[in-house]
């Protein structure tokens, strides 16, 4: 803001893109999700330098460098931990976390549980393509049990991980699913998630054209959720138990207060701590 009170120009999605060209395969759903994120951030209206995007390892974890925001590209599975530390140290920032289903639900599973439970104000966007693109096509926790692969010939035979169920049960304050093929709808959902206080979780179905080309069918399978969003976790729990994995929309937008540690203001001087030790 300058002295004469002129509002800065509204931000456009292009303001949130960096000059770095993504290395994702042409056709990858993550291109659309990146676009949705930039659209959502433009809607939110904070400048890029007040937004931080934290990620782990995987295709979708490349996103921070493709934006003009502050980014942290950490190690596999630990993005939520790094983001938690960042947000607690800097509650003034808008913090987004991006990653894939392997990074988030496998090695990151424990941190996912506790991030939902802790309910620190941040937005976690998982681009789920039901595969580990990273290491050339292994099953991930959300891969169908009968999907054939080298490491699990004939399929894993293991029940899939249900991220929305787990997020809701663990205490996430906002739970939604989106589809990369609907970039405007996804942008609106992400903006809503960012605005919603506490831990907001958006699972985005984002097909992998290289390792799961059959996922091009997803665009015919996704559908708007037949139910309205609710702030009642019990109702949400009943609904999610019949989720077919392709419901698009907000499942739950709750009212839990975000985690906010007590901080004394104004802070005491360090010298005050010495009194405790004096003989």
């Amino acid at each position, binding site marked *: 803001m300058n002295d004469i009170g002129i509002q800065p120009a509204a931000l456009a999605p292009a303001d949130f893109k960096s000059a*770095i060209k993504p290395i994702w395969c042409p056709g990858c759903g993550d291109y659309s999700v990146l676009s949705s994120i930039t659209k959502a951030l433009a809607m939110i209206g904070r*400048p*890029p*330098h*007040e937004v*931080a*995007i*934290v990620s782990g390892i995987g295709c979708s974890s490349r996103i*921070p*460098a493709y934006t*003009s*925001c*502050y*980014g*942290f*590209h*950490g*190690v596999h*599975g*630990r993005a939520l*931990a*790094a*983001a*938690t*530390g*960042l*947000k*607690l*140290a*800097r509650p*003034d*920032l808008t913090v987004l976390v991006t990653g894939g289903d392997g990074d988030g639900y496998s090695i990151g599973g*424990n*941190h996912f*549980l*506790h991030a939902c439970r802790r309910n620190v104000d941040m937005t976690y966007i998982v681009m789920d393509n039901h595969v580990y693109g990273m290491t050339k096509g292994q099953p991930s926790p959300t891969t169908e049990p009968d999907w054939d692969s080298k490491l699990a010939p004939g399929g894993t035979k293991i029940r899939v991980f249900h991220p929305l169920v787990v997020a809701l049960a663990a205490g996430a304050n906002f739970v939604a699913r989106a589809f990369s093929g609907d970039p405007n709808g996804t942008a609106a959902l992400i903006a809503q998630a960012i605005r919603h206080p506490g831990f907001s979780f958006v699972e985005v179905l984002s097909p992998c054209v290289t390792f799961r080309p059959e996922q091009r069918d997803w665009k015919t399978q996704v559908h708007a959720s037949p139910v309205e969003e609710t702030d009642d976790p019990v109702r949400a729990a009943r609904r999610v138990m019949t989720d077919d994995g392709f419901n698009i929309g907000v499942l739950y937008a709750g009212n839990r207060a975000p985690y906010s*540690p*007590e*901080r*004394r*203001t*104004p*802070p*005491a*001087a*360090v010298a*005050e*701590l*010495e009194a405790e*030790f*004096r*003989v």
Partner: protein
Amino acid sequence: MGDDTDAARAGSAPRGVSIALAGSGGSGVMTAGTLLLSAAAKAGSYGLMVRTSGPQIRGGEAAALVRLADRPVDTLGDAFDLLLAIDWGNVNRFADEIPLAAGSVIIGDLDEGEPPEVYAGTGARFVALPMKKMAKGIAGSWVNMIALGLAGALAGLPQSALEDAVRADWKRGETALAANLAALAAGYAAAGGISPPLALPQVPRGAKARDRWLISGNEAAGFGAIRGGVRFVAAYPITPATEMLEWMAPALARVGGTLLQAEDELASINMIIGGAYGGVPSLTATAGPGLALMAEGIGLAVASETPVVVVDVMRGGPSTGIPAKSEQSDLSFAVSGLHGDAPRLVLAPTSIADCATTTQWAVHLAEALQAPAIVLSDQFLGQSRAIIDPPADPGLVAKRLVAEANTPGYRRYRNTESGISPMAIPGTPGVTYTADGLEHTEAAVPSSAARDHRLQLDKRERKLLAYDYGERWADIEGEGDAAVITFGSTTAAVREAVARARAQGHGIRLIAMRLLAPAQPERLTAALQGVRRVIVVEQNHGAQFYRYLRGHFELPGRPASYHRPGPLPLRPGELHQALVEWTNDRRATA
């Protein structure tokens, strides 16, 4: 203890008394030991209390090992003057830790049985006192108060000092206080009734009252961290580091910071990296198993050039090891346990008071060098409590080189002469970047190019090697053509051993190294001017420090090693004997 007596003390051994209080099943010896130390502090003495206990969560056997002295002490002596046992339940477990000599005294309660052979056989004089009966005779009192009064009286502490200590810490209401003060008095009086009278060495009394502190190494480390600027801690509880976190949680909140208990150590290290990335000096504390889990995260801090401090309160290893006992066996892991070429800072405080100063220094260094710093404390320093002179503020605080807003052409990992490049703090316009564990260009773009990898590796190494660490890197004391090199908690025992050897005419230099990594070979060479032989002293099985020194430094002659694993601390007597044997040309290694 005025400054005028410091010079007189310098050449002599610490004077004072060592008392062990033992008991089990809720007899309260830990509390009694703490109060004894506190009372001695009020009376002007210095001292140290080490705790030891069985594995039970409640009701287990325990002993408080207290040494009171005329100067700050960070090691126990060679034997205890008094072992006061409220009962004998499994107390023979502590025999190795409570060495007695012929001149020692054992006070025990015959209603609880005879003293075990392992103590009775030392030749110490045994005095029987019905302490439990005495306590029962005063309604509402605890037997540890009898013991406290007894021990305090025998050590020459004024009853008022003991009463003040009890009152200061009392949390249980007036009636109970009165009963226990009565028990204290009864124990105190009983000392006078022992016949023939015991002539225990007395607690040295201070000539000048001073503003001393009673503090544990864990608390000191936490305090030093906060004084250095740490305002965010994320950590997972683990023995023997947990008390540091327990102290820091409310302390941080008071000074405007925050502590979060994480779900595991993997979360802890990544959380503090996130906090530090956001511009806030951050720290975690753990022990060996937790440090091992954090290795990948520490590497991320190296590669992304994010400052963090990891305090490792070392304990018996490997693996789960001996959680409640001390050892110096994480050194190898700390200096080289990361994948890739990953230079990092490793420091080790030499005493309980130094836990504050060195942790503060570590915060300063980590922030200045945008690198992780591992502080090797240990269970002995961390969980022992000492009376110390308040540690002077070294004036070292977190001061990071940050990027200015809208710096044109800003490159986060720009190669500079010092190797340190300005870091953009989130919220600063015009200099946004993505930090990365992937190798990167100067502009922070991921890169697999040879030139970039070489440049960044050189940069990250150079920033640590080119830095001037000043005189704090080691304590160098005394002259001679022989030198002892050690680090960490063994320093105090080595110092006493060297003093004894010097008193016998052996000229030995002591070098206690505080900055372990990056190695400072030129400085050590300068410190070893005139020295023709060295012996390396450490508390681990694999002679880790000895091997590290031989690998990275120049040592004269045929370097010798005295090393022993935990759980027992190295004592001045055994070290003195080893030093004398070694200087007399007999190889002394363990």
